[in-house]
């Protein structure tokens, strides 16, 4: 069964540095998402992406965040200048049409020191 893949599984970075989290969604899916989960807290929506543009974003997704689909397969989340509070598990997900269940990747654990 096809899966969403995310790399790296764990990223450690220093405060103020830029990070790029990578995802390869399932190939015939059209909608892509980033979620995050701070340790001990709930899974929070960050952004959704469809047809090469952001379709919806949360208040968490401020100017330091950006997403891109640089080629036909990758979907990236960039954090421009990381803060300590960005430390979390970041999940990529995809769905065929909207409203279908999310297919999640294994997540990238981001640790900002």
């Amino acid at each position, binding site marked *: 069964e096809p*899966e*969403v893949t995310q790399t790296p599984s764990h990223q450690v970075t220093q405060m103020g540095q830029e990070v790029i989290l990578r995802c390869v969604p399932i190939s015939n899916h059209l*909608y892509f*998402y980033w*979620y995050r989960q701070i340790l001990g*807290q*709930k*899974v*929070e*929506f960050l952004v*959704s992406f*469809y047809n090469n543009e952001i*379709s*919806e974003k*949360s208040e968490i997704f401020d100017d330091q965040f950006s997403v891109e689909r640089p080629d036909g397969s990758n979907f990236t989340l960039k954090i421009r200048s990381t803060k300590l509070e960005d430390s979390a598990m970041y*999940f990529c997900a995809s769905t065929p049409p*909207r*409203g279908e*269940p*999310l*297919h*999640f*990747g*294994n*997540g990238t654990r981001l640790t900002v020191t």
Partner: protein
Amino acid sequence: AQRVTQPEKLLSVFKGAPVELKCNYSYSGSPELFWYVQYSRQRLQLLLRHISRESIKGFTADLNKGETSFHLKKPFAQEEDSAMYYCALSPSGTYKYIFGTGTRLKVLA
């Protein structure tokens, strides 16, 4: 405001006992509701969704619009059911899914 509430952080039951994981939602429209499960060291995966009305791994969930609930039930818990369970809402006309805080289910031998 659109919200999903899972009041229990942890639920411990003995093997063979019935399980009910509570989920309440706040949404004025017709909701799309899901239960996701995360087993240890595995990814979040769909367990079931309300529109399919099916039973997966012995679990069922019924949407009660009057009580705005979508509780997850299983008549006889098994040790392999131990996992983190998340209730999620997809409001119509949006792209986002709103998750509850999750309930950790521990099934004791």
